[in-house]
């Protein structure tokens, strides 16, 4: 079981009139309030529960986390207690921490240099916080393609997690280890989205014909799958935040290891251990990026419309100028503006996956999200241009490759 922990650095209402005058882009109050709420509902009680389970079952219960740099910054600032409780989990040795992009960004789709920079920054941050060095990798929103796999391997990772998307698997089962066709030494673990979403999305749905979900029922489904490994990947906020405590989600998790381990057909493992133990059975071709989002399992939740594409292009056009500047403040700002959440808020896919989008979205409309983001980005660009001007170096003008627009 693998859990993703992330909190975006939400922007404040940033008006045109603020451009060039006020360069604080973030809504500290909202970020702090939400973080506090989620810490109370999810992070703290769930970490306690997992720690109890690890103690109870000795080495037999294992879990995996990835925590974004953006989330860790907010923990450090507002809820250091949460970091302590993750540290306790790390100390058990039964928890693997994954590497990812520090800022939960789409840099893997934009620039290899920026991607590499963020992964290294994240690895270092995890080492500093938890004293462990991540060996396996998960990209933002499970985004993966053959070429991203190759980049990941070149950064020293041998295991990567992604989505078991139906359109790439076809008849194949997600419950085996696969490899990247461009880089056979990179092992891939694919999310079993059906079983993962039974917990993450459907658990409290009383209209679901399998409600209520019990440990025994879930075990019977696990047993019905034939394969080497079943990958249950989900947002950590599933526990207590998306699925409220009143839904019984904590009781389900408290009981599940008893049922699974008692049955004896399964063991809990972590990504790096799994890819050591199981051989890859085949290559899997993913020429175009996939993700774990929406029905399409592609990147259209972030880059699906012209607003998102323009924002994305404008943002990454700044890399060149930034590269000329040794300015940590601007680099950090650049990072926060890269959080994929900002683009997600501009999504116009309100019809098929609208419910999920709306749940995660602080803006009333994608247009508002776009205007607000572009205003902040415009101010950021002004700051870069000023810094470039004062540093006396003119950026080398190279045409930047644009994303295809419809």
């Amino acid at each position, binding site marked *: 079981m693998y859990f993703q922990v992330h909190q975006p650095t939400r922007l404040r209402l940033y*008006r*045109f*009139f*603020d*451009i*060039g*005058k*006020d360069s604080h882009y973030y809504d500290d109050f909202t970020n702090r309030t939400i973080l506090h709420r989620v810490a109370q509902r999810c992070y703290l009680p769930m970490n306690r529960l997992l720690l109890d389970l690890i103690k109870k079952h000795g080495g037999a219960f294992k879990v995996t986390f990835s925590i974004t740099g953006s989330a860790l910054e907010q923990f450090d600032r507002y809820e250091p207690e949460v970091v302590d409780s993750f540290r306790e989990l790390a100390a058990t040795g039964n928890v693997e921490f994954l590497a990812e992009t520090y800022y939960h960004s789409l840099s893997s789709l934009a620039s290899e240099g920026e991607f590499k920079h963020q992964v290294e920054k994240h690895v270092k941050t995890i080492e500093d916080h938890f004293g462990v060095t991540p060996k396996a990798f998960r990209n933002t929103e499970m985004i993966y393609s053959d070429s991203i796999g190759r980049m990941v391997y070149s950064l020293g990772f041998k295991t990567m997690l992604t989505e078991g998307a139906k359109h790439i698997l076809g008849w194949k089962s997600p419950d085996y280890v696969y490899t990247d066709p461009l880089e056979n030494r990179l092992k891939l673990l694919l999310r079993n989205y059906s079983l993962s979403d039974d917990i993450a999305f459907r658990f409290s749905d009383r209209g679901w014909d399998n409600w209520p979900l019990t440990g025994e029922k879930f075990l019977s489904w696990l047993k019905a799958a034939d394969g080497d490994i079943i990958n249950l990947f989900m947002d950590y906020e599933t526990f207590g935040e998306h699925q409220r405590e009143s839904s019984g989600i904590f009781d389900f998790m408290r009981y599940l290891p008893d049922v699974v381990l008692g049955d004896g057909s399964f063991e809990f493992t972590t990504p790096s251990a799994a890819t050591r133990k199981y051989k890859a059975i085949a290559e899997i071709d993913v020429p175009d990026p996939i993700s774990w989002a929406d029905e399409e399992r592609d990147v259209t939740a972030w880059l699906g*419309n*012209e*607003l998102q*594409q*323009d*924002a994305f*292009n*404008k943002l990454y056009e700044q890399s060149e100028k930034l590269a000329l500047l040794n300015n940590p403040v601007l680099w950090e700002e650049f990072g926060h503006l890269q959080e994929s959440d900002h683009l997600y808020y501009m999504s116009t896919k309100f019809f098929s996956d609208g419910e999920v989008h709306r749940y995660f979205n602080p803006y009333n*409309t994608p*247009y508002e999200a*776009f*205007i607000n983001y*572009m*205003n902040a*980005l*415009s*101010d950021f*660009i*002004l700051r870069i241009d000023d810094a470039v001007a004062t540093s006396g170096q003119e950026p080398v003008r190279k045409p930047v490759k*644009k994303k295809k*627009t419809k």
Partner: protein
Amino acid sequence: MRVLMFGWEFPPHIAGGLGTACYGIVKGLAENGVQTIFVMPSASGDEDGSVATIINASDVPVVSTSSSVDDFVNMVKFMKVGTNMIPYVDPEQFHEMVEAEKRLREESTEKHVGEKFRFSGKYGSNLMEEVARYAMVGGTIAMEHKDEFDLIHAHDWLTYLAGIAAKELTGKPLVVHVHATSFDRGTEDMIDTRVFDIEKRGMEAADKVIAVSDLTRNIVINKYGISPDKVVTVHNAVDFSGRENLQVERGLKDKVVTFLGRITFQKGPEYFIEAAAKVLKRTDHVHFVMAGSGDMMNRCIRHAARLGISDRFHFTGFLRGTDVQKMFALSDVYIMPSVSEPFGISPLEAMRSNVPSIISNQSGAAEVLKYAFKVDFWDVDAMADDIYALLKYPALADFAAKEGYEEVNRLKWNHAAAKMKKVYESVIK
């Protein structure tokens, strides 16, 4: 000379430009020795009573049920109103409006003789009903004040029925004032025929029609079939008294080109976006702002994104109060690329703030502003040329700003009112 004037709104509580214009007119008339009784559907009590006697139609019970008034009411009673009719409203006000309307709905909507009707005086979706009731109450008011005025003056279609009722009941001459027509709100083949009918009735019943520009005068003659000798152009003016230009600290070092108005088809917002993209091909040091809201806003946002200029093209949403002045103060060029604009007061405001303005030939303001740059709304190349020139050649921009400022300060309601007084004199027998 005394005039009974029917308006829809009056400062300080205004949603559109009509209230501001009425205030200027009434004040100008006073300076020309014309006394005004100003009737409005819903007065708040804080209107400036020094320039006119204000009558709040919501305070007046219906006593007369002249059959001719009933005819109007019957004619419009069935007209339930869609939002496309709401003439001067932005989405922010819409929610408020819907709520207010719900409250009104809960009260009886049947008309009863001897009862007062509480008008919202806004532009809600029960507008047609309000217009009809306003006609009834208007007739009553005219009868009550029969000996206190020499003629009737009604502003825009909302008040025409009231004007007609007053004329029928008192026999006094009627002047209708056309600030905008249905053709400025819809496209040629998509106008609201119910509004058109009221407009036409008003113009036909009137002894003289005042149009805010020659452009509008031509529409009145050609589209409504009104005899040319009955239609007189009196250009709008603008009242800047008591206004100091704001000093605002600029955040942007680059130049700013601004569009300010409702983002609707009539205002030509997309021509501005196209022109902006052309300018940005030649110079980087400029930002474009589209201030306002409207039914084309989202489409415009997508348009700018598609052209890849979103980091230089900003949307502010609807601006209130001092933010409007602030926006002018931050601007280097103002643009009004309207497809159809009866007059268009905003470039006057911009020029008063020392901002050189580019306006379309299809606006009434183009008839009076010598020092504004004029282009056809569809000619985005010419628009881009003018923007570029104003950004790059300071001598030109300074000249346009200075002369423009002088020019708009010479446009006084006093002069416009003097022309109106002549129109009044021509109808009083």
